[in-house]
């Protein structure tokens, strides 16, 4: 059986194009995260899949069946809304039963499904309460419960954690991970929190500017970003981008002169990149460290120090204006205003052409 298939889906609101030729294939039990900045069309795509929004062109298939013409209730899809959208006048039990009654599921079957879901979500004692009498976290569980009892082929969750406080958030995150093991369905979660996407998803769909920028496992998206946007968007703190020019290929690897004058010998294959082409060099914080004074590092001024306990992120600015974030182990004593030298692990640097195309370092031979 096949999972969800999106073929060339496009959508405009009036003259504004929101989705432009989106194609995507999801396996039956996969956990997918839609990740992207605000306004990138994540919710719109989710709503098109659910049938709450019409598409202008393209096709949606689920389980081998074309569903884009079906009513939302007939698609075998359940959705958990950002603000839960529980029916305020119904008890928790009635909330969960509503969809099943509409689907004409027999009474005792409804009762047993609700009991089972309540058990999983530990809301058995709350079944006769109204949503208004519950906390945000409990409502969230009810919303998930209402989705589970329908035994859908696909769960859609629009920013399921964004309304919860930090403690509840990480707990619910664990529960979502457990949920995916319990249900025989695919899950799509919309988020603009990359940590959430990284932890939970089998694959991440990075969206921006009406299009899917990259689809890949969290490791792929992090280590081999498809373009400059993904490189900058994924990873925290973000990858630093330094403008430079290609000066020569040495043993087939790019050598780049940065705007500040320093030269970097990267591990990126030189093939296909013209000499003197303007490029950007992408450096993740973990590939930039503080060099001992007197060594041949690049001079920079410390602007902000973020001490996390086990490591310290040092936000610095180069003389020519670019921002570079360095990472030091443990508790670094540098202070804002300090002049430091940066040691760059050039072999780990990514290189981006002017059009945003990514070139990744190759493992050294």
């Amino acid at each position, binding site marked *: 059986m096949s999972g969800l298939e999106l073929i060339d889906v496009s959508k405009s609101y009036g003259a504004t194009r929101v989705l432009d030729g989106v194609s995507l294939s999801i396996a039956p039990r996969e956990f997918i995260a839609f990740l992207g900045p605000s306004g990138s069309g994540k919710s719109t795509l989710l709503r098109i899949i*659910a*049938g*709450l929004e019409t598409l202008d062109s393209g096709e949606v298939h689920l389980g081998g069946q074309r569903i884009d013409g079906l*009513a*939302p*209730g*007939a698609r075998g*899809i*359940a*959705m958990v*809304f*950002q*603000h839960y*959208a*529980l*029916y*305020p*006048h119904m008890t928790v039990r009635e909330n969960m039963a*509503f*969809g099943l009654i*509409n*689907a004409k599921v027999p009474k005792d079957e409804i009762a047993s499904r609700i009991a089972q879901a309540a058990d999983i979500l530990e809301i058995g004692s709350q079944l006769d309460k109204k949503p208004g009498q519950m906390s945000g976290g409990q409502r969230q569980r009810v919303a998930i419960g*209402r989705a589970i009892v*329908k035994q859908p082929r696909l769960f859609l969750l629009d920013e399921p954690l964004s309304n919860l406080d930090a403690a509840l958030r990480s707990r619910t995150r664990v529960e979502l991970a457990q949920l995916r093991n319990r249900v025989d369905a695919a899950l799509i979660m919309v988020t603009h929190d990359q940590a959430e996407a990284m932890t939970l998803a089998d694959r991440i769909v990075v969206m921006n500017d009406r299009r899917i920028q990259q689809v890949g496992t969290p490791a792929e998206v992090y280590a081999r970003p498809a373009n400059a946007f993904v490189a900058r968007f994924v990873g925290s703190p973000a990858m630093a981008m330094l403008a430079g020019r290609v000066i020569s290929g040495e043993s087939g690897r790019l050598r780049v002169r940065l705007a500040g004058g320093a030269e970097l010998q990267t591990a990126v294959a030189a093939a296909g990149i013209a000499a003197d082409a303007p490029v950007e060099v992408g450096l993740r914080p973990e590939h930039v460290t503080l060099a001992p004074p007197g060594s041949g590092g690049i001079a920079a001024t410390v602007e902000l120090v973020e001490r996390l306990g086990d490591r310290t992120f040092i936000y610095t600015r180069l003389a020519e204006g670019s921002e570079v974030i360095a990472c030091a182990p443990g508790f670094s004593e540098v202070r804002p205003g300090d002049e430091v030298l940066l040691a760059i692990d050039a072999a780990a640097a990514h290189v981006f052409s002017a059009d945003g195309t990514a070139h990744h370092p190759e493992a050294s031979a």
Partner: protein
Amino acid sequence: MSETAPSSQRLSPLVTVLLLIGAGIMLMPMLWTLLLSFKSNAALMADSGSAFMPPWTLENYAAIFQGSLTTRWLINSLIVSTGSTIGVLVLSSLAGYGFARLDFPFRRTLFVIVLLGLAVPEQAVILPRHQLFAMLGLHNSYPGLILPSLTGAFGVFFMTQYFRAIPPELDEAALLDGASRLTLFWKVLLPLTWPAQATLGVFTFLGSWNDYWWPLISATTSDYFTLTVGLASAQMNYAQTSGLGFLMAQAVFASIPILVVYIAFQKQIVRAMAGTAVR
């Protein structure tokens, strides 16, 4: 507004005294009416001051049930007010849902026309309406008394605003739960509008109950008088001196239903008067 202070707040003694005086002044005519209704017409004709002294009697109330048309008028009023209320609630809910949630051609234009209806005073349409109803033979009938109130624009406007305030996510959740439009309306949205229904219902009922002008024009035979028209006609027929006790008994009797409505819907009425959001 400051006059709607929470009831838990203690009032200063001065304010309490002033309020008591105000309430006393408001209550006086009603208590006077009640008192007079228990005296025989003859006794009152001699001296209305005798109201404070026994003997008191129920003969005026007995007279209402024997032969007078008051019970008939009361029933008319009940039928007309209840009919208007139900009609307004049904129409306003359906129209409000439509304007708030459905997409159909000329929706905006139609809504503007509804809003314009709010600006048209009854005085401006009462003559053509009278002619129209005469042509259709609707005068001296219940439909003739009920129909005009169903054209009121306020209910439609009020319910539209209320439906608009319900998050559309609820509709979407229901659609994903496989609900038909009817199920969505009936089982999800309508129950949520209960506070609005209560407020609109009470006001429609009271408005219709107290309406005088249209029933005066439309009902010309006393069989179709509503209480307001009937009581007024009685005041003209009985010289106020000869039938004072009976007149007062009629007034007391006529206000019982309205009293029941006020007591039953106190909360909605106070909220609506105070202009606070009803939720």
